[in-house]
């Protein structure tokens, strides 16, 4: 499933829309399966620390990950399992990082969502929200220095993260430099427990684009088709030299902040509002209605996804944990500096 899906990355021609939609849907499905497994493993006490899930915003995440092309840059955040997989993250990375395996991309030094493959253009987030936006912008500056005129960089953030100074500084800087940066905001209504009303005072976060002198769009984040269309346009405009793009997807976090959080504070009326729809179910019924996939086909995809997830989790679970005796305890990359580090 993983290999065939990646063939469709970045295609936006209208005639290919069903293929693109199906591809993005499959990533959503796979991400949901991965996250359900993570939740189960956490409840079984198999994962240390927190487990942060993206239920309710897979459409936005999957759309941006699917639309980016090989060679582009991606800085995903907490709830981007779908986008990470679509952009090229091997599923085994997810489980290895959550288990603290020494085989994982962070060698057990960092966990859960703090993983990436910087050499492959996927940047690892730190917990300080907003701080990844300028990193992706800087990577695009590097591409420009190197004469790469085609790469686009995308990064994602939540409504809460848009209140940080780092977010503001980075977008302002990217606007000045006219970088091909797409900033995708999933407004899932809650920053941990804080509602939009305590986070910002504008009508729509997309309105901020005008103040930065960049292009901004607002979209229904529960509708995969709309996400693909709007983000497809934003990616295309960024790629063709129109500068940074701010895209706000409206949705609802259909889970707590992390698995330890039952979200008792959430206004339950939001669940019955249009943004409270489960984007996966919406996409599934759309596929059937369009005749692009039958119920049996979707069920087969689900089974296949589940099988991949179980295999991947099982492999990672059998692998060794990070070992304090094998850890080299050195934060330096430079050999002579590393020697000096040990010498004191």
């Amino acid at each position: 499933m993983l290999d065939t899906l990646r063939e469709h990355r970045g295609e936006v021609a209208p005639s290919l829309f069903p293929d693109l939609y199906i591809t993005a849907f499959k990533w959503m499905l796979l991400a949901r399966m991965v996250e359900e497994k993570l939740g189960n493993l956490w409840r079984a006490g198999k994962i240390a620390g927190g487990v942060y899930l993206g239920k309710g915003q897979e459409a936005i995440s999957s759309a941006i990950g699917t639309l980016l092309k090989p060679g582009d840059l991606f800085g995903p955040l907490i709830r981007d399992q779908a986008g990470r997989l679509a952009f090229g993250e091997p599923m085994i990375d997810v489980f290895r990082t959550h288990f603290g395996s020494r085989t994982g991309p962070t060698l057990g030094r960092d966990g859960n969502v703090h993983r990436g493959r910087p050499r492959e253009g996927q940047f690892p987030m730190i917990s300080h929200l907003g701080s990844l936006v300028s990193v992706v912008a800087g990577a695009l500056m590097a591409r420009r220095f190197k004469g790469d005129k085609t790469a686009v960089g995308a990064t994602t953030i939540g409504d809460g993260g848009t209140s940080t100074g780092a977010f503001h500084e980075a977008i302002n800087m990217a606007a000045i430099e006219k970088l091909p940066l797409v900033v995708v905001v999933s407004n899932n209504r809650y920053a941990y427990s804080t509602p939009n009303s305590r986070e910002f005072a504008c009508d729509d976060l997309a309105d901020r684009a005008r103040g930065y002198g960049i292009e901004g769009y607002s979209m229904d984040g529960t509708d995969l088709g709309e996400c693909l269309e709007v983000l497809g346009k934003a990616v295309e405009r960024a790629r063709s030299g129109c500068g940074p793009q701010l895209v706000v997807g409206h949705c609802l976090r259909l889970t707590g902040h992390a698995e330890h959080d039952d979200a008792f504070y959430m206004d339950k009326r939001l669940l019955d509002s249009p943004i409270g729809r489960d984007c996966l179910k919406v996409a599934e019924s759309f596929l059937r209605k369009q005749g692009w996939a039958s119920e049996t086909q979707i069920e087969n995809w689900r089974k296949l996804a589940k099988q991949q997830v179980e295999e991947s989790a099982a492999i990672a679970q059998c692998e060794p944990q990070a070992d304090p005796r094998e850890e080299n305890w050195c934060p330096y990359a430079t050999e002579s500096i590393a020697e000096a580090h040990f010498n004191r």
Partner: protein
Amino acid sequence: MSITYLEAIREAQRRALRDDPRVYIYGQDIATFGGAFKATKNLAREFPGRVIDAPISEDAMVGSAIGAAIEGMRPIIEMQFADFSSVGINQIVNQAATFFWRTQVACPITIRLPSGGNPGSGPFHSQNLESLYAHFPGLVVMTPATVEDAYSMLLEAIEINDPVIYCEHKYLYNRLKTEALTEAELPPHKARVARRGRDLTIVAYSAMVHESLAAAEQLQRENIAVEIVDLRTVKPLDIDTVLASVAHTSRLLCVGESWPWGGVNAEVIASVATHGFHLLDAPPQRINSKDTPIPFSPHLWSVHKPSSQVIAAAARRLFDW
């Protein structure tokens, strides 16, 4: 023809820009204007597109350098004053300093901090933050004291595969001169014996090396021979050179311009006490700036930071102990 500490910094950047296409400089007012202290004067004209004015966004400046470094560039960030780097501290200590540890991908950025006071600079244009940055794992913190080191260590900072905090001292910018720039004799992380002496060891770095040398001259007339160790790089700390000096003087005085609580002096003394307690004939001493914000008034400022007189007085007491 002579060259100043400031010109050495400019020449190092010119050479790096000339020799390495991966190098660029990003900071406020550094292009046309040539920088608040003229450390990049004429470089924008000589290297079009590679000496770039940044908005007043220290967080974004450092964040962008991290992203560019991951993609293979060698960015130099000029902070207008060391003091303002605290606005970008999150990117420095959380993003850059941890990057290699988390990913096994190097993050080679150089952040230049114009540090230290001048008369009338006040609380927010005079700070020395080397102790702060040295606290965080993953950063290299350089504090060059000579024109030669200002030049060679900046070139090495750019070469190093880790994030480097390069603390250049503003007081030395135009006061320190040499005849010609030379290649480095020591690797950047090795301390240097700046003056030989048998009676006591002063450990200093950056501008305090020169206050200590002046104190040593005074003491020489009193027949007290001071040995001075210039740390050059405070993180990682070359404690071997310090211990070797203490082994033959048996007395230790540490001098730093940053604040006293914790910090480089405290670390040197703790390391010597741990590894060389048996070498000491007297309790190790330290002199820092006073534990207050840095005063504006030149009169207040002149006694806020360590001076050669204060250093000489402390050295006499230590010698007589």
